[in-house]
Structures are given as structure tokens and as C-alpha cells.
């Protein structure tokens, strides 16, 4: 079993937690795992890029154009890393924007990504867009957005769902467990479809 995954988002969104849960689950199932994380300067609200490879004994970094799934917790970060996805791969993208300071302070505009993802749909096997943050809110907290995304991702992971749920129970503090499991469940069962990202301000393509 070989599976290459790239998870991207913004520092503070819980990218590493998602990666850890998958990594630990894979080890539970007796598979080998390699992952690469961003620490230090790359945190503090900056772009976060996490690579995870199951069943491969090479380096931890997924070469360009070869990820089986790109999981984007934020649309602009997903766009930034889409070159890592294989043409046979699947992009799962949360449409809820997190504004970089350059945008929130009014200096730059957040790009309109609608056409970009429309184009992406023609290139890659599948591009799933969903408002995971809204679902997380339904589950009880927008902080559980990462768990919604993990829920969507499990459809494509070479791992048993029970193993992942076991690992979530181990990895998340008891206080937040119910919300996280609910978010995970919502992600697992949500019908994903193409939706509009948001009002445009600047055309890119």
C-alpha cells in the first residue's frame, strides 16, 4: 500500500494534529509512515505544509505532482500547493478563508480562486470544495475544522475508520473529544459538491 498525502493550512489550524492522527493510525495498522513538518518561523500564523507518506521507505517529502490527496484547510494555501498533487489525485479544500495580515490590513486583496479551482477540476481527478468551518461550527466549535477535513479525507485513506477514531480518542483532550468526534462524523458523511468560494476581488486566471 502506497499513499502520499499533503496537508496544508495556516499556523494554528491544527494541520499537525491531523497528520499525527493519520501517522499514528497507520503505525497501528502495521504500515510504515514518513512525515515532514513545518516548525519555528513557519508557524506564527504563516503557511503550514505537512507531507505524509504511507508505505514508502523513501524520504518524507512528497515529490511534486505525486500526492494522492491534497488536503487544504484554507483555499489560498491549497492553491499554493496544488502543484504537489498528482493528476490522478484528489484535492479536498475547505473554502473558508483565513486572511493573511497583508489582506486583513487592507494592503493586498485576497484573490478570487473560483476560476482557479474550476480549472483545477479539469486537470485533476477530483476537486472537492466544502465549507468545513461551517460544519465544524455545527459540531460545536470552528476549532474542529481540521476534524471535519479529516472526516472527508478518511474516504480516501488506506486506513480503517475505526483505527482513526481510536487514535482521535487518544490524541484529543477529553474536554474537546465530543465536539471533535462530531466534527469528524460530519466530515465523513457530508455530501461534497462544488460551491462558490466567495465574492471576488481580483481575477487571477
Amino acid at each position, binding site marked *: 500500500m502506497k499513499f502520499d498525502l499533503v496537508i496544508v493550512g495556516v499556523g494554528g489550524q491544527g494541520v499537525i494534529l491531523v497528520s499525527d492522527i493519520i501517522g499514528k493510525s*497507520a*503505525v497501528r495498522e502495521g504500515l510504515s509512515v514518513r512525515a515532514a*513538518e513545518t516548525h*519555528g*518561523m513557519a508557524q*506564527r500564523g*504563516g503557511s503550514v505544509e505537512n507531507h505524509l507518506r504511507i508505505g514508502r521507505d523513501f524520504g518524507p517529502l512528497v515529490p511534486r505532482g505525486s500526492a494522492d490527496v491534497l488536503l487544504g484547510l484554507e483555499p489560498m494555501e491549497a*492553491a499554493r500547493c496544488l*502543484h504537489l498533487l498528482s493528476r490522478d489525485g484528489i484535492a479536498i479544500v475547505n473554502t473558508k478563508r483565513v486572511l493573511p495580515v*497583508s489582506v486583513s490590513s487592507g494592503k493586498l486583496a485576497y484573490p478570487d480562486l473560483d476560476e482557479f479551482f474550476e480549472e483545477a477540476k479539469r486537470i485533476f481527478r477530483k476537486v472537492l470544495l466544502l465549507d468545513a468551518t461551517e460544519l465544524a461550527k455545527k459540531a460545536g466549535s470552528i476549532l474542529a475544522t481540521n476534524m471535519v477535513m479529516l472526516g472527508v479525507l478518511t474516504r480516501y485513506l488506506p486506513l480503517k475508520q475505526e483505527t482513526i477514531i481510536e487514535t482521535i480518542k487518544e490524541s484529543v483532550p477529553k474536554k474537546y473529544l465530543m465536539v471533535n468526534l462530531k466534527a469528524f462524523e460530519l466530515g465523513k458523511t457530508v455530501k461534497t459538491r462544488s460551491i462558490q468560494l466567495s465574492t471576488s476581488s481580483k481575477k487571477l486566471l
Partner: protein
Amino acid sequence: MIKREYILGNEAIAYGLLEGGVEAAYGYPGTPSSEIMEKLIELSLKYGFYAEWSVNEKVAFENAVGSSWGGRRATVIMKHVGLNVAADPFMTLAYTGTRGGFVLIVADDPSSHSSQNEQDSRRYANFARIPCLDPSSVQEAKEMASYAFELSEKFKTPVMLRSTTRISHAKSDVEIEEDLKPKENSLGEFEKDPSQWVMVPASARRLHPELNEKQKKIEEELKNLPWNRLELSSSKIGVIASGISYLYTREAIDFLKIPVSLLKVGTYPPPVSLINELLERCEKVLIIEELEPVLEEFVRICADSGKRNLRIFGKLTGHIPREGELSVDIVKKALGKVSGRAFKRESDPLEKIKELLPPRPPTLCAGCPHRATFYAMKKVFGKNAVYPSDIGCYTLGLQMGTVDTCICMGASISVASGLYRSGEKRNIVCTIGDSTFLHTGLPGLLNAVYNRSNIVVVILDNGTTAMTGHQPHPATGITAQGRKTHQICLEHLVKAYGVDYVRTVDPYKLDELIQAFEEAKKCRGVRVIIAKRLCALLARKSTPKVKQFKVTESCTRCKRCLEIGCPALTWDGKKVSINEECLGCGVCAQICPTNSIKEVEEDKDEV
């Protein structure tokens, strides 16, 4: 019993040290090395060995020297540039040698993900003439860390384990010894031997030849280690790879399906006999390594005395870049070129978007006290003043125009003094964090006072070593293990150095801060302002949000508040609002010229 766990490369190195019998561990935090010591500190509580955060790498290194000379297995851990700080004892320890195993762990950072340069520590090992182990995977890093003590004791030499970001910050399933017994507490004892431990010139002259003579034996030992491996094929193309590049190479070979002979190098000095065996069989040899052409230069020397129909490719021929980290793609390209099977990458129609997206660099957190300090500094001294700075989260003050220089740990005060002596007439206001100040800022301040410099020094005291993950330091009054210890008072310390103008101010109180800067501006000499307020990330953990703010209707949309670049303020194109990131520091409310950002009173449902 052996168990498999999914852990960080740095944690694996800590387990390796534990299995190797570490008895004393020292270090100063620095990305990408910090988690090694953090794991060791945790393990030290269980297994009863000694572990500390030292005040800087030189001090850490010398402590480890003491422990080794006392007969204990010692390790010292740092990032690559930390070894520059510790280079003085490092170079001479190679001469004196060690007693208890001495393992130096250095984490290099190809591509400078979190560093000011991308120097190659293998050069340092070669410079000092000590053996260096260069792991290609997390599992290997763990095994090398464990073995390094044995190697050190066998040859009485310090041993370097050189990690890189993609080892240290990689995660992998790793085999760990599950039931290690806590160590019985034995004591070290120093054996007096001035001819060995007192490096007067006569000792140096005697020990230098000894160091050189050791090399052959060390080479002999290293070449037989399992981390050097030659896989021969009938192909006339050979590849030699070291560190993580070895795995990139294997993946590239797997992809391109080119038959090659492959030599994996995991030790320095490299295995000469294996290199010669490969060179003997091949007509073309490609050397793949990150950072400097250390291995390549070695191979070229080996080839000099050999056959003529041999071509060597690598960094020196431009086939492998000398800057930045490598990747499978870079190796594919180089291997394709050397083997004459050009590998063409599919063009990516979506590639161009990358250049059009607004960047998302790391920023000072919402509620970060540094933001307030930088704001006040700039308000009082203006954008024309010169702002030397230092290494820490506050280097992000670059985005506020209050960081004009940053070169290495502790340099801000000395660079400021030097700028003053260069004849610079504008105000010079330098910033340095509390941990950095205690690391190497102190001698700079001492020198500035002694030599009558004319600068303002701002100590950004957030009560922790924030950037590397909130490690304690002497001014926190807490040890690595979380125990209470003597708490150094920065204000007393600065006064003891002879600084007359010292003020400690809470940066959340902007008026007081501005007043302190105004006063300082009127004086001459070395003036110190300590902007003291706990790191917002730590404050958020210990106390939930105390105050809530909102933008009221009197807002004139002047956007003054947005100038401080706080992620808790959002401009939607029409108006400013405060988002959920807000910690309630109230700095924006103090900046607002129309007093339109107001605290939400708890009883009323105004939000």
C-alpha cells in the same frame, strides 16, 4: 522489548542518546534542534540522568566537556549556528580528547527554513578532525546517537551527529527499546592529568600529532559501519549520496529505472576503500549531498590518484545546486542529465498562480507585547532612527519597520555601538529579547557601557524563549525540569553593569512606554528600557481573554489601528472590525485617535 512508535526525528535522537547511556545533557534551544533536549528533559525525570537548558551553546559545550572529563557520558545539543558560539572549546576538545563518551548533536538547516544561514556542520567536523555521523533517516539517526558514545570512548574523541531539518522535523515509525531500566546513580570522578587537560602550548604541540595519528584508526572503524553501504550493478554510472539525499536518490532511481551502482555514505571521514571500489568500476560518478561539496571534494581527491577515463559530477560541475535543500526532483534532473536520459517534467498549467498569491509569512501574534513596544519606539524615535535587532520572534518586527539589522544571537547591542562609532548621527535604538540578552547580549552591553556608547537598548522581556517553543531561562526562575531556582532580575543585572537610565515598563500601557522612550531620548549614553510582559501565547494558555473590545460607530476609518498589523483586526474594504483572534490587550484602543475602539462591558450584550 522493542516497540514501534510514531515519533519526531528529534525525539528519536533523544531515545538513541538514552539507549546509548547518556548521563548528562546540555543545550540551548534553536530550530530545528530544540525537541531533542525537550524530549531528553522529559526522559531525565524518568531515568534520572542530568539535563539542563544552558544559557548559550558555548556554556553548554563546556559543561558537557566537564561532565565527560569527570568520566560521564555527556551530550551537547544545538543548531548549526550554535556551534559558531561553541567553536572555541570545540576546536580544542579534539586535541585534549574526552573521557566519558562525548556526543555533539548539531542540526543543520538546508534552505534556511528558520535560520540566518545554511552552513554545513560536516565542515566543522572536518576542521576539528573529529568523526561525524550523517543519518539518512529517523531510525538511523536514533541508532547513530546511541552508537556515538561507544565511538567516542573508543577513540577518546568528541563525535558529531549531524542532523538536518528533514531528519529532525520528520516523523517516522521508529523502533524503541521499551523497558530500559533507570540508571543506578554512579558518580563521576575527575582524574588529574595536567598534560592532558591543561592546554598550554607544550600540551597542544604534543597532542596535535596525536590527533592526526588517530585519524587512520577512526577511518578504519567508520568504514565498516552499516551506515556505509555499496550496492554494485553492472552499470558504468555510479552515484554517491549522503544524509537525506540518499533517500531522495533511491526514490529518483526507482522512478527513472536507471541501473546505477550506489554508494551510501553515512560517516565522515568517508569510507575511502568503498569510494575507490566504486570509482574503479565506473566511468561517470554523480555525488549527491546537501549544502557544501564536502563529500564531492573528498571523492575528487580519491579520484586524483586513479584512472583517467572517469568523470565526476556534482556541485562543482553545476549538476547539483550548492544552495538550498535537495529534493527528489532535483536528483531526478541531475541523474537524468548524467545518464543521458533527460528527464522532462510535465509543465504545470496552474504553476503561475503561486506568484500571484499574497504571501503568508509568520507574523507577531495577536496581543504580542512586542507589537506595542515597536509601535511606541517608532512613534517616539521616528522611521529615520536606526533599529538594530536580534534573533527571536521580534525579528518579525521587520514588518513594522523597526528591525534594520539582524546577524546573529546577541549582536544587536554591539552592532548598535559600532554604528554609533561609525559616526551615525541619528538615534540608534536596538532591540533584544530576554533569552537572547542572557545568551550573548550581556558582553555587548558591558562593552557599550565601558566604551561610552550612545544608544538605547530595549530588552523585549516576554519571560520565555518564545520562538523555539517557550523554553525557560535564568530570568524565569525555573529550571528545564520546571523546578524553582534563583530568578535573575534583568533590571538589577543591567544596573550592575553601570547603566544609569533603566526603566521597566509594561508594553500594554502605551502612555507609560512612550513616556519612557521620550525620557530616554532626552538622555545620552547607554539607556536601557525593559519592556516586560509575558508572551501572549503563554498568557493565553494560563489566563483566558480578560477584556473584549469592539469598534464603535464613531470610527472614522482612518485605518491608523491597522498600521500595527495585528491579526485580530480586519479591514473588509469598508470598515474595521475585531475578530476572534483578539486577546484583549487593548493596544489598538490606545492607538485609535478618535477613541472608537472600546472595551465591551460584560453585563451588557453589546457584541
